[in-house]
């Protein structure tokens, strides 16, 4: 009885979580684990779904597990989350006009600098 009382104090909001994620095969489970690492917890200042046990994170994880079981693609799942919680809930910024600079400039700079060094004129 005492255990039930204490746990109710601890977990009163999350008793409604339901069952946890069940997968029929390992690939699904791996896909799920990777997905929740790349999606931000909507309520936390920083941290992925994988690292959060806020109620909304738990709900979202259950929903994502369900979508993985339904064989939805990673993109479909990410779009689902982004359209409801914002693009900022994805840790991987999408490749768009506004992010070309982000994704490509490191390599461009590396190439440029290396070329300048290798082909420098000797004094």
């Amino acid at each position, binding site marked *: 009885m005492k255990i039930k009382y204490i746990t109710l104090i601890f977990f*009163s*909001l999350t008793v409604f979580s*339901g069952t946890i994620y069940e997968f029929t095969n390992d690939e699904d489970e791996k896909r799920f684990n990777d997905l929740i690492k790349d999606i931000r917890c909507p309520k936390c200042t920083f941290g992925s779904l994988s690292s959060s046990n*806020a109620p*909304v994170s738990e*709900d979202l994880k259950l*929903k994502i597990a369900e979508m993985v079981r339904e064989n939805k693609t990673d993109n479909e799942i990410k779009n689902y989350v982004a359209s*409801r*919680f*914002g693009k900022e809930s994805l840790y991987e910024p999408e490749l768009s006009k506004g992010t070309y600079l982000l994704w490509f400039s490191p390599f461009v700079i590396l190439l440029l600098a290396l070329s300048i060094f290798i082909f420098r004129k000797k004094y």
Partner: protein
Amino acid sequence: MKILLKLLIISLPISFLFMFFVLLNEDKQIPGADYREFDLPIFNLEDLDSKRVIKNTDIKGASIINIWASWCITCQIEHPYLMSLNKRGIPVIGINYKDDRDDAINWLSKFGNPYQLIIHDYKGSLALDMGVTGAPETFLVNNGRIVAHYQGEINESIWNKVFAPIIEEQGLFK
């Protein structure tokens, strides 16, 4: 060539630091407010009182949707404001979020009922579909499309800052 290099070395950090000055001084948007538009999600849930089935298509025209629960303390604080909205003739629909039905009904009889309609979202599936992260949260919906979303306690000040501009712009609640 050397001049170019020198210029680069000094101008890059300067522009970078300047950027930070600008960013630090910038006025942030109202925290908690979100104006992303999306369709009201499809749902099929019970009315809290009558247990009659409500669908997303039953929500017509312009209305306020409020996420609340009997276990949510801040909801008690914003409650009077919702009552006043209701008095002004603004339709307020409630989504009872992850709440026990009896607890919710008791809460309403104790504090008063500002809602024209209450959807019992026991599992929180509709709320999840709407991007809700907790209670209280308030949405402005127009013709099946969500046009504004505020996370947190709603009051006159928030109403004027977050919702009133959109209502004015789209000519709602006339």
